[in-house]
């Protein structure tokens, strides 16, 4: 059952050819086979999973028709998502041993649907990074080439789907942390509209940018998971009360007659030639499907990176103040409180987290607030306005997801070069629009992703474009070496 889709497994569960327990056992066996190389998991939650699998089996037997398509399906959760009683570290030393006394909303919705949680996946510490090298628990290997990074920050969630262990996982996307690793590992990764999926239970990195979304093998699976987790949550005041339209209803409507825009700035000088070729080929496929493509401009793309690297660190400097060694997590004991704070946070946080906390603290401090934070908030408005203007003329934007394919571990030690990974994904976070990455080719055996962005709340349109493209190609069906490792 390795590397199956949700759709395939849901059918198999209903025709009696498998059971939730069997799927779970298969998933855990695959973890055991691959984990040495991949390090995709921070915890395997066998006990929780077994209980969930048994409950799912019961539901499938009692109500096979009305049970959710996710019922009995194994899945994995990025370790920034809180699960009651289950170790949740956010990839940080400072949260080692932390067991939340509650379960977050999106996760609870999956549990309610009957999904089976195999484990918590590795990620960049507090979701800060683009390679998953910033995890306090070691880097994650890319299933296409374990010497290379899987992207980040949701690298573990991407890798485990790419390795065929589970058909879906949840990640979080603050500046591209779902879409970029999806591109680099050859799977589908979707960041919904900001406000569509509750952030309650998501360990915050940058509150105005964070959004939870799925990794899957197909766009159809992606739509199913999205449908299960989306919708208003009174515990998240920024979650939108508007009704969610069923993404499956329009999934097969195609792109004939659609106007698609290619932002000139998204194919800039930093784009690797192989990536450019693959994406341009994808544009021709879309044209062949009846879409009309045109070049558009998002002039502030370049400066959006600066906006992001002020707003995200500013919010994170505040969001991470709660890691003080008092109520949870690891404490470095010192006789004086001040020293305890200083040493706990020095020992508990990794370099990238420290960098961003300091950067954000600086951007908010008196004397610099106007020049940095306020200015960034204003330019953020500009970034949104440019999207609005473009969406007057096109229905969606198509572009590469990442300027590069998966790069070798350790090759981007300079923070700025790492930040450049997100240059075409982070504007969607600043504007709050939905965005997806769908496999669109390979460069020397390494996957390339096509990004689709639509206006806010047009999540279904993003999925529809991605689905049309996916169905016309077979890149999504190609399996990484780790997905074909036999039992």
């Amino acid at each position: 059952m390795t590397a199956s889709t949700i759709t395939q497994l849901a059918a198999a569960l209903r025709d009696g050819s498998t059971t939730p327990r069997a799927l779970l056992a298969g998933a855990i066996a695959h973890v055991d086979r691959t984990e040495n190389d991949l390090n995709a998991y921070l915890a395997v939650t066998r006990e929780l999973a077994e209980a969930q699998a048994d409950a799912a089996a019961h539901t499938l037997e009692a109500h096979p028709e009305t049970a959710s398509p996710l019922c009995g399906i194994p899945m994995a959760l990025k370790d920034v998502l809180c699960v009651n009683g289950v170790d949740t570290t956010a990839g940080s030393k400072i949260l080692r041993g932390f067991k939340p006394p509650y379960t977050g909303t999106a996760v609870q919705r999956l549990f309610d649907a009957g999904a089976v949680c195999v484990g918590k996946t590795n990620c960049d510490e507090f979701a800060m990074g683009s390679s998953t090298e910033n995890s306090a628990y070691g880097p994650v290997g890319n299933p296409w080439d374990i010497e290379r990074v899987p992207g980040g920050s949701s690298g573990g969630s991407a890798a485990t789907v790419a390795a065929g262990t589970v058909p879906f996982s949840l990640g979080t996307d603050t500046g591209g942390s779902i879409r970029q690793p999806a591109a680099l590992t050859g799977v589908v990764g979707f960041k919904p509209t900001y406000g569509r999926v509750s952030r309650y239970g998501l360990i915050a990195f940058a509150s105005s940018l964070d959004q939870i979304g799925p990794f899957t093998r197909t766009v159809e699976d992606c739509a199913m998971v999205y449908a299960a987790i989306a919708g208003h949550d009174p515990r998240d005041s920024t979650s939108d009360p508007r009704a969610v339209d069923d993404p499956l209803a329009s999934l097969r409507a195609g792109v004939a007659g659609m106007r698609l825009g290619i932002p000139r700035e998204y194919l800039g000088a930093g784009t690797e030639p192989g990536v450019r070729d693959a994406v341009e080929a994808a544009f021709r496929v879309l044209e062949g499907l009846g879409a009309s493509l045109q070049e558009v401009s998002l002039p502030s793309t370049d400066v959006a990176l600066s906006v992001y690297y002020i707003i995200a660190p500013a919010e994170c400097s505040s969001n991470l103040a709660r890691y003080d060694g008092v109520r949870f997590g690891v404490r470095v004991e010192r006789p004086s409180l001040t020293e305890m704070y200083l040493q706990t946070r020095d020992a508990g946080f990794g370099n990238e987290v420290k960098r961003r906390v300091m950067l954000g603290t600086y951007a908010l401090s008196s004397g610099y607030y106007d020049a940095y934070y306020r200015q960034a908030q204003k330019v953020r408005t500009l970034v949104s306005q440019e999207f609005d203007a473009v969406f007057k003329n096109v229905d969606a934007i198509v572009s590469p997801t990442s300027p590069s394919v998966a790069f070798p571990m350790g090759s981007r030690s300079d923070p700025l070069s790492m930040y450049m990974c997100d240059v075409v994904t982070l504007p969607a976070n600043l504007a709050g629009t939905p965005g997806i990455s769908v496999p669109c080719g390979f460069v020397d055996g390494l996957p390339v992703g096509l990004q689709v962005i639509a206006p806010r709340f047009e999540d279904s349109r993003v999925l529809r474009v991605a689905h049309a493209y996916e169905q016309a190609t077979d890149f999504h069906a190609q399996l990484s070496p780790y997905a074909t490792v036999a039992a």
Partner: protein
Amino acid sequence: MTETATRPAALGRYEVVIGLEVHAQLLTRSKMFCPCPADYINAAPNENTCPVCLGLPGVLPTINEKAVDFTVRTALALHCDIPPFTKFDRKNYFYPDLPKGYQISQYDLPLSLNGYLEFPVGGEAVRCGITRVHLEEDTGTMHHAGDVLQSATSSLIDLNRCGVPLMEIVGEPDLRTPEAAREYLVRLRQILTYIGVNDGNLEKGSFRCDANISLRTPGAQELGVKVEVKNMNSFRAVQRALESEIERQTGVLDSGGTLVQETRGWVEAQGRTISQRSKEQAHDYRYFPEPDLPPLRLDAAFVERVRATLPELPEARARRFQEQYGLTAYDAAVLTDTREEADTYEALVAAGVPAKLAANWQSGDVAALANEHHTPLQHSGLGSDGLASLLRLVEAGTINGPTAKELLAELYVAGGNPEALVRDRGLAQVSDTAELSALVDAAIAANPAAAADFRAGKQQALGQLMRAVKDATGGKADMPLVNRLLRDRLSEQ
């Protein structure tokens, strides 16, 4: 900008400038940003907590609508403007009683602005501007092992109070004397308790005050060096702390010294303030808009809805009591001191007790009993309905004053129906003229000397005769009638 109290301070060489900041907890049932019970006093430490107020990873705040309502209600009572757009901000600092490492508060766009509070001080009207009223969350509480903070080896943290809605009322530096400062607080607390948003308990800290005080040469436009005084747990402490601070600052200035901008704490036991923090150590709170909470747009309809819930405020009510019930300014002020007091009074009047009679009893014997038993009338055995029946018996002449007093004291504690009790115990006053006339004659016959003295012009001799009649009725005689009958009989030749 606003009129100010112009009375100079006791030490008249400098003009005293005082501005007060009040933090008042709101009487909501749940906390500000999570649905935990807001009652933090009657729960074991850390019992009333949840992931949100514990500041656990992954949680998000939600706004308590009632707290917004209460803050707007307060702002309207203080004549503030309610801007159409307001938002919450994060105030960032580290302290163990602040779990998130930031307090959700309001910075540049508070819920309300530009109000004032008017009140008399020493017969003169003072108007103190209100800069703003904004909404935030309270912190947890800390208990320090050892006597004082500085020598403690460890601290215990209780987060029950953490997240209780807290309103900050910032006053303009319009106050000129410690007495005015005290009066401002008395009035402010009265209004908050009147409109039902705060319980006004300084001791327990549900109503807290910090003061900013500076001295300057009279007539100077600029303010002097400002000192913030904290840790004052009673109105008296505020006045004393400010007096002591004026004395200290005057001393420094007179001896040619310079004051430093700092925060000082009032030490009640020593009767002085001590330095806690200098300006150099002041915080950079790095305020920024709270990304987890959408802003508020309070339209005119919302504001009007809240305005409609505002009760009559104490000052207006006292004025109306004078006009409507013919009370003196003093009685009206006493009877409108608290909303409960005023409501009781109006209930008595509505129940048929004459206004003056109700006022005398309520502010006299009833107030004394409430004080003695530490129980307000509403919670006494008698209740305001019982008091009304008792006073109706007095008004109807069914019982006399002394009997009523005795009954009041008894019923206040034990409860019971005054009418039934008067009937069962035969306490009704003797006011039958024929019966009393006979007793008057008997008293005169038994006390001939007193009768003679009175006839000779000694007014006080009447007392002995009155007592004799009273005793003969077991204290139940209608004494004004006895008085009249005695005088009539003794003036007969």
